[in-house]
C-alpha cells in the first residue's frame, strides 16, 4: 500500500506528533513496509472466517467485586511531572 503525504500528516495529527520532513519520509517508508508485510494476508480467502482478537484460547478471566486497593496517592503521584492539591496538574483544558 502506498503511504501518501496526506496519510502521514493525518496519522501525525491522530498521534499528536510533529514530524520533520526527514522523519516523515522515514515514517512513510516504515509504514509502507509494515503494511506490505501484513498485506500478504489479503491474498487469502477469509470468507466465513471469524475475526480473531486473541491468539490464545482463554476466556472469562474475572475478578470478584472486592476492594483490595487502599489509598496509595503518594506513590501514584510520585510519577507526576507536576502536581497540586493531591491532583495531577496539566495544561488548562476545556471540556
Amino acid at each position: 500500500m502506498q503511504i501518501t503525504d496526506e496519510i502521514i500528516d493525518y496519522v501525525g495529527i491522530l498521534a499528536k506528533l510533529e514530524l520533520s520532513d526527514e522523519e516523515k519520509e522515514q515514517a512513510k517508508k516504515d509504514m509502507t513496509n509494515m503494511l506490505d508485510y501484513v498485506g500478504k494476508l489479503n491474498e487469502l480467502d477469509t470468507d466465513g472466517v471469524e475475526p480473531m482478537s486473541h491468539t490464545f484460547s482463554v476466556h472469562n478471566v474475572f475478578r470478584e467485586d472486592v476492594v483490595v486497593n487502599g489509598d496509595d496517592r503518594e506513590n501514584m503521584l510520585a510519577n507526576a511531572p507536576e502536581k497540586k492539591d493531591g491532583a495531577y496538574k496539566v495544561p488548562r483544558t476545556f471540556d
Partner: protein
Amino acid sequence: MEKAYETVIGLEVHVELATKTKIFCGCSTEFGGAPNTHTCPVCTGMPGSLPVLNKEVVNKAIAVGLATNCTITQNCKFDRKNYFYPDNPQNYQISQLYYPICRNGKVEIEVDGKKKWIGIHEIHMEEDAGKLIHDPYTDSSLVDFNRSGVPLIEIVSEPDMRSAEEVIAYLDKLRMTIQYLGASDCKLNEGSMRADVNLSIREVGAEEFGTRTEMKNLNSFKAIARAIENERERQIDILEAGEKVVQETRRWDDNKEYSYAMRSKEDAQDYRYFPDPDLVPIIISDEWLEDIRAKQPEFRDEKKARYQEEYGLPEYDADILTGTKKLADIFEETIALDANPKKVSNWLMVETMRIVKEKEMDADDITFSATNLAKLIKLTDSQAINSTVAKEVFEKIFDEDIDPDKYVEEKGLKTVNDEGALRTTIEQVIADNPQSVEDYRNGKEKAIGFLVGQTMKAMKGKANPGMVNQILKELL
C-alpha cells in the same frame, strides 16, 4: 408559511453501575473521596499494568439487558476507543464496539394514557473517565482519577421518541428498572445517570431523517425538557432560513437556557477502535443467563398492580409508592412487621411526602427505618398517643430515626386517659372561659371546639380527644 415539523429523538444514556470496585481494578468506587485516593496503576494507565474484569459488572449489565428485553451477546469482547484527553490516562477508553453485551431491546412507555415501545439499539459496558477541575490560581487543570475506571453501561436507544414528554417517560422507565435491579441509583444530578440527546427535525410525513445534533450536560429532567424545546426551535429557525443544520455536539448551559457548539475532543473524530488485547473474550453460558433471569426482582409495573390488588390501594397511591424504590422498600418492610398496609401507605403518602417536599429532597434519600414506623403505628393503634403527638413523633423518626417507644416514654407524650386529671383541667378551662361556655349553652355548637383546643393546650396536646369531648359535654 411555517411548515409542520416532527422532532426525532434518540438517547445515549450512561449509567454508573453500583459495584464496590472499579471495572478493571480493585479500587473503591465510593463517591466523594479526596482526589486520587482511589487510584492504582491500572486506572491511571501506568505502563505494564493489566486490567482484570469485575464479574459483577457483567452480571449487572446482563440484568439490565434482560429487564429491557434485549438479546444478550453470549460471546462478547472489549475494544479500545482511542483519543487523547487529560481525563483519559490510557489515551484510550476500554469500551465495546463490535460485540456489545446487549442488543435489540425495547421498553414500553406511557404518555397521556398512550402506550408506546421505544427500541434499544444496544447496551455496552465501558469505563468512566477522570475529572478535570479548573484551577484559577495557576490557570491550569487538575486531574482527579477517582472516577477513572468506574463501571458504566451506555444504553443507546433507537430514534423512536418524538417529544420531551416521551424522552422523560423513557428515562423514568430506565431509571426505575435499573433502581429496582439495584444496578445503580441513577441520579441525574450526581452524574450516576447521564443522558445525551440526539435530535433532528423533519417535515411531518418525510421519510428521511434530518441532520442531528448531540446535546450534552443535561443534569435534570427539567434541563432535558428545556434543551429539547430549545434545540427543536433552533433547528427549525435554521431550516426556515434556508440553511442547513450542522452535525455537531452541543453543550447545554442550564443557567442561560442556551446551548453552544463544543470544541470536539480532538480535531479528527477517528477513534480507531480495535479489540483490547489485554482482555480475553467473555462467554456467557445459558446457565449463567438463567441464573440471572431467575434472580430478577419484581419490577415497578408488577409491583404497582400487586399493591392495588393485594392491599386494595388506589392506583394513585400505588403509583407514588412504587415511583421511588426506597418508598416501596419501606412500605413492604413495614407491612412485614405486621402493620396495616393502608395505615403504612397513609404515613408514606401524606406525612413522608409532605416532609420530602418541604425539605426539597429526593424520596430516595429517606433514611428512617421500617422498624420505627411500625412501632409508631402500633402506638397509635393502641391509642397510647393521639394523632397530633404521632405526627410530631414521626418528624423525629424522619429526621433521626428515633425509637418512638423510648421517645414517647422519655418525653412523657403518652395520651392522658386519666379521667380524674382530665376532669380537673376541664373544670379549670370552663372557669377561665365563661364567654365560650355561654355561647355553647346558647346553642353555638362550635364554641365547644375552642374549649377542646384550650384543654389540649393545657394538657400539652397529650389528652385523649374523645374523652375530652365527652367530659366537656357532660360538664356543660
